[in-house]
């Protein structure tokens, strides 16, 4: 049974999606989605406990050994990612029940939950597989379902945002495909481990260089690194609350995982950092991205949009850590993938609570919410503190390692930029807090109050995670450090 876990990890949510269509009545689709997600979470936890000490599980799908067949290859890094993805969906789905009831027409609920499970399946599949082409297939499963789910937002701009994402996402996936084709043409294999063996002798080949460029640009489009982030702000702003919370916490993170996987495992650190000037390129893009996105966030009047730009900035921090090319930087990146998922998940769920009560997330509608919706706004404040990186929150831990890694390299100007942009984050979080706590609620209009427990509980679980992982870091940092050592050691 336990040896079959890797396959079931993806297949359980995959089977859940069509089951939602068959059992389309009432709350059944939601229940199917919830169960599939919780089972996936339990399996991810089991897998992580098995590979925690640096072991690697290989699973031959169809019984065909790699490189003939498709291989699942689970190490501490992707088990960690799967735990993150399944964990987020397991917390978001209980929230979905009431939130979706309010935001999505009832006769489409079964389609919505089916689509949600497809997003989950796609992201898990991207994380688990050890086959370069199989990655492409699962990228498309997660992307296509995301396009449709984003378009379910009530504002018509959700449609144009989804279309923009569809165009940029497909360009990204096609670039990735071109890259995979090129490395296939010069190596004859698609299996990642096999590629890792066959690429080093031909590092000087121009084809390998072009393949690396196409795969990287394709993934960077997916993870929305500045200036390839143009699809992200509108998509996150106008998507239904649940979809935003799930995607913001996981989608760009799994793309970041792919960047690490292809960079370290497939192409190898020697190629990526010594032959190609990746470090310099990523450093420049990350720094500009962090500064520009944080600044733009300050001037947003829709809080969801503000948080979306903040996400672009956070992606910048994560890529920054990767660009250091040392263990501390890599640890910082991986731990920030986790911490930012918790932080943004909490913040976007708080947005979902406000959308549930007020219907919109415009800044002016926040006036007086500190009194009217104390629990929701308290969650927002804690999440905001974690976003800034205040001590005792998860955000502090990742920024600490990020600064540490920069100093290790002797890049003190980078450390200064990290601190300065944290101040920018403080400014945009403060703008919201000021309106919510120091401005009187409008005299007219309905009196708002905190949403029901079913919405508050998931929000507070993630908010609690922001605090918990700020104090007790042995789990998040522990696994991240192991994953970083594993990647660096494997090169």
């Amino acid at each position, binding site marked *: 049974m336990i040896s079959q876990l890797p396959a079931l990890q993806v297949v359980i949510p995959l089977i859940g*999606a069509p089951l939602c269509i068959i059992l389309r009545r009432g709350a059944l689709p939601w229940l199917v989605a919830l169960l599939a997600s919780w089972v996936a979470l339990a399996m991810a936890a089991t897998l992580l406990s098995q590979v925690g000490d640096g072991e690697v599980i290989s699973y031959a799908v169809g019984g065909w050994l790699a490189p*003939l067949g*498709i291989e699942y290859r689970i190490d501490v890094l992707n088990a960690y990612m799967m735990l993150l993805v399944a964990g987020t969906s397991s917390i978001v789905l209980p929230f979905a029940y009431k939130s979706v009831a309010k935001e999505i027409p009832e006769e489409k609920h079964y389609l919505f939950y089916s689509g949600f499970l497809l997003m989950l399946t796609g992201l898990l599949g991207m994380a688990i597989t050890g086959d370069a082409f199989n990655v492409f*297939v699962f990228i498309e499963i997660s992307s296509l379902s995301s*396009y*449709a789910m984003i378009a379910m937002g009530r504002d018509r701009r959700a449609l144009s945002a989804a279309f923009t994402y569809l165009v940029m996402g497909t360009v990204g996936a096609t670039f990735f495909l071109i890259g995979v084709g*090129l490395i296939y043409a010069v190596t*004859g294999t698609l299996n990642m481990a096999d590629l890792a063996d066959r690429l080093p002798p031909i590092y000087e080949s*121009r084809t390998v260089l072009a393949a690396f460029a*196409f795969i990287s640009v394709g993934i960077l489009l997916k993870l929305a690194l500045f200036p390839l982030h143009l699809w992200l702000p509108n998509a996150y702003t106008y998507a239904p609350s649940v979809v935003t919370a799930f995607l913001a916490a996981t989608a760009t993170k799994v793309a970041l995982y792919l960047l690490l996987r292809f960079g370290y495992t497939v192409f190898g650190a020697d190629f990526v950092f010594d032959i190609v000037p990746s470090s310099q390129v990523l450093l420049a893009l990350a720094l500009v991205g962090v500064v520009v996105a944080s600044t733009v966030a300050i001037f947003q009047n829709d809080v969801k949009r503000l948080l979306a730009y903040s996400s672009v900035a956070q992606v910048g921090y994560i890529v920054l850590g990767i660009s250091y090319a040392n263990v501390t930087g890599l640890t910082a990146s991986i731990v920030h993938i986790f911490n930012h998922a918790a932080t943004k998940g909490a913040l976007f769920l708080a947005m979902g609570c406000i959308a549930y009560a007020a219907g919109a997330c415009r800044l002016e509608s926040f006036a007086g919410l500190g009194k009217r919706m104390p629990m929701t706004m308290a969650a927002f404040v804690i999440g905001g503190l974690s976003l800034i990186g205040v001590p005792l929150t998860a955000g502090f831990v990742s920024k600490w390692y990020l600064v540490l890694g920069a100093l290790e390299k002797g890049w003190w100007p980078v450390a200064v930029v990290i601190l300065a942009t944290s101040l920018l984050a403080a400014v945009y979080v403060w703008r919201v807090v000021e309106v919510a706590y120091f401005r009187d609620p409008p005299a007219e209009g309905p009196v708002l109050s905190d949403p029901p427990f079913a919405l508050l509980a998931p929000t507070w679980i993630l908010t609690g995670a922001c605090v918990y992982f700020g104090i007790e870091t042995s789990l998040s940092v522990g696994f991240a450090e192991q994953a970083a050592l594993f990647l660096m050691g494997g090169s």
Partner: protein
Amino acid sequence: MILAIDIALLVMLAVVGIAIIRLRNLFAVVMLSGIYSLLMAGTFVLLDAVDVAFTEAAVGAGISTVLLLGVLTLTKSREKIPVTTPILPLVTVIVTGGLLIYGTWDLPRFGDPNAPAHRHVAPEYLAEATHETGAPNVVTAVLASYRGYDTLGEVTVIFTAGIGVLLLLSGSGVLRRRDPETPDEKPKSTA
């Protein structure tokens, strides 16, 4: 000989492609894109990919064209003339294309039987697949068995497209309908 036909087909494809960019009548564009797919299918046959050719003809010249025509009847069929000249896209395309040409430089010669892709993995399929799966069509054997998991993903993608189209277009009838007796489609305020 094959190379000559191949090149001729490719040049025709390029001509059709450029015509698609230049034409503003979208009906003509859609018809040309169908022709593009047919030419592409012909090229696939020439390159021994009969299964792919079959599929490209059915999908590109069939489904896609029908869908595009269907959408055209719902929208305007003339493209507007752009206000600005697109410099940035042109630069992007030239850089991307340049990088690809650069990348092709170290590729094995077209049709080279000693290319790495033909020396590793593929020979094992050709030698073993029919014996192990009983299917003379190696493409089917690899598709359904060796890489069956990709195919499960492919079905899931199709499933996703079906769900996505239903999410977007079912119900929410903001429009007048010809056959009002369908019970499961009532107007929605959220639409």
